[in-house]
């Protein structure tokens, strides 16, 4: 019974992973779900470095990409019948090569944390990305390399031609990877990673080489990034230089950061949010990258512990049963804040558009007319002022909801 209670969250996670395609079964939805599964594994592997181990990496895509390239090569081996095995094991090949790359690069890059580590990771990232364009027999140059996942032996009749079939493979792997990254945090090596993150010097005085502790986390992180790369290879059946360059490294940093580095669930939230923004927002606006950047800035400035940190902030109020005190102030602040956001978006989009009539929220606006601009600016100004005013009330409500009850104080 205790075991059931402990594992209930994991069962719920597995059910959610496997059940989602039943609720969202369009081609787009399955494609998004696939990206989410890949993103979750990749972001969790990144958090092993930065959140758990205090290593800021600007080159984490290297392990993702190398895992992915090797996985596509493995797909080719299957295709040409050099070696025949089920494609279910492809992520394991990605993981193995991510691990090997981690062992090799980690052997010198984990000597120091902080700026030294960050700079080395940046250098290695650029080096591998540049090499991938030079060594085109292995990396396929700018076009990358492609494989075909349908040649392997079928699994209970499935040949994995459909994206939904690959999703279930990805979901199971994502579950396994999540479980193992979590279990890692529950081991001596995982806890010492936290200790070295907090205070590498003191860790040495309780018998641990900070460097070796970092090295272990680094290798594990490389392995899980490689698994994510293998899932990518299975999903897209091709991989290019783009998948191991700085842009991909930046994206995984964003996922982990926006989700919340200090919490295990943070990168999962980050991967889900960013994948959604990436796939859905890009349908609506060419400027989605700009919005992503603004969101990252706002997160860093106002929610340094990410979305997960924002949720966890409410723990005290929740435990004290004071959540209802916060609902009304949240709504009162939320309405003008949303209005301001909407105005800001329309102003940004209007300055970008070439159309004579700009359609937005059922309105037909004329971007050429100064009146449109003045009116929207006025609304934005009013909404901003209203948000600022209501924030004061929200702050008061927050104080009351989190205050120590009288009887506890005495």
């Amino acid at each position, binding site marked *: 019974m205790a075991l059931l209670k402990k594992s209930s969250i994991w069962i719920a996670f597995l059910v959610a992973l496997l059940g989602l395609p039943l609720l969202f079964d369009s081609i787009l939805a399955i494609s998004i779900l696939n990206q989410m599964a890949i993103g979750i594994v990749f972001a969790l592997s990144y958090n092993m470095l930065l959140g758990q181990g205090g290593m800021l990496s600007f080159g984490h895509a290297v392990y993702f990409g190398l895992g992915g390239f090797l996985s596509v090569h493995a797909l080719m081996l299957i295709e040409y019948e050099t070696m025949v095995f089920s494609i279910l094991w492809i992520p394991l090949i990605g993981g193995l090569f991510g691990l090997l790359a981690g062992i090799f690069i980690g052997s010198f890059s984990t000597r120091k944390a902080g700026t030294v580590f960050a700079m080395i990771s940046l250098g290695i990232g650029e080096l591998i990305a540049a090499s991938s364009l030079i060594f085109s027999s292995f990396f396929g140059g700018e076009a990358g390399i492609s494989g075909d996942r349908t040649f392997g032996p079928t699994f209970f009749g499935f040949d994995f031609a459909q994206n939904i079939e690959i999703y279930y493979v990805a979901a199971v792997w994502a579950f396994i990877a999540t479980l193992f990254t979590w279990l890692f945090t529950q081991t*001596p090596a995982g806890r010492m990673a936290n200790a070295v993150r907090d205070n590498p010097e003191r860790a040495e*005085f*309780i018998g641990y080489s900070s460097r070796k502790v970092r090295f272990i986390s680094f290798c594990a992180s490389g392995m899980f990034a490689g698994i994510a790369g293998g899932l990518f290879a299975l999903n897209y059946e091709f991989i290019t230089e783009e998948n191991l360059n700085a842009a991909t490294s930046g994206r995984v940093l964003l996922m982990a950061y926006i989700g919340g580095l200090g919490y295990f669930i943070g990168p999962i939230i980050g991967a889900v949010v960013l994948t959604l923004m990436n796939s859905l927002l890009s349908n609506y606006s060419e400027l989605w990258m700009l919005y992503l950047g603004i969101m990252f800035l706002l997160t860093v400035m106002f929610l340094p512990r990410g979305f997960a940190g924002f949720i966890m902030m409410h723990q005290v109020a929740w435990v004290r049963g004071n959540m209802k005190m916060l609902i009304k102030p949240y709504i009162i602040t939320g309405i003008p804040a949303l209005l301001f956001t909407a105005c800001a978006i329309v102003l940004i989009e209007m300055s970008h558009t070439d159309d004579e009539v700009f359609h937005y929220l059922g309105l037909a606006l004329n971007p050429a007319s100064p009146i449109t601009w003045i009116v929207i600016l006025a609304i934005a100004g009013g909404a901003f002022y209203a948000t600022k005013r209501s924030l004061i009330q929200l702050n008061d409500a927050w104080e009351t909801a989190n205050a120590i009850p009288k009887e506890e104080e005495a």
Partner: protein
Amino acid sequence: MAILSLIDVKKSFGITEIIRGVSLDIVEGEKHAIIGPNGAGKSTLFHLISGRYNVSAGSIHFKEQQIENKPPYEIARMGLARSFQVTNIFQRMSVFENIRCALFWSKGYGYSFWHLLGKQTELNDEAMHVLEQIGLADRAKFPSGELAYAELRALELGVAIASGSELIMLDEPVAGMSHSEAQNAVELIRKITEGKTLIMVEHDMNIVFDVADRISVLVYGEIIATDEPKNIRANSKVQEAYLGEVPSA
């Protein structure tokens, strides 16, 4: 028998010589205090013994093995533990986690990533036991970075002694404490170092004369006297170095 011997140890930073030839034997089981004016090199000496700094010359033996210039983790594994003058803990982890981490190596877990901590009953009980000893049992789940000052110092002590090392080095363990807090801390130090060797740097002379079996006086990087407390009090060189501060205590 000497558990720790320093033989003509020297340390320079650039051209500045901080430790100018220190020789010292620490007898197994004794409580040894190192005193001296500010800037005499007491903390530097601690750093040299515990491996944080490399020596410029001379040698250090712990349990008859050379330890100078070894990395701190190797010295710690041999059974030499230390605390720091400025609290130096794992601030984002809980109080319990701090102590448990300090236990890993001596309990033989090494760099294991295959033991699940939830199942290590003996280890977890031992960590709780240490917390009870240092009076922080009710703070087990508290984030250690948010402890009150005296509690932080107790945790600092706990992290140092948790592994059960034979030689414990405490760098100003009661600095910054109120009188009553310091009294409690001294009781605690007595309790947890029972049957072990203790080397302590401390400014509070009441505590030094109360706790120490022997005292060494370090002045400008040299030990000018090592003796029992009552002889140190009467030593004219010491009185000179302290300008009459010591005997007043």
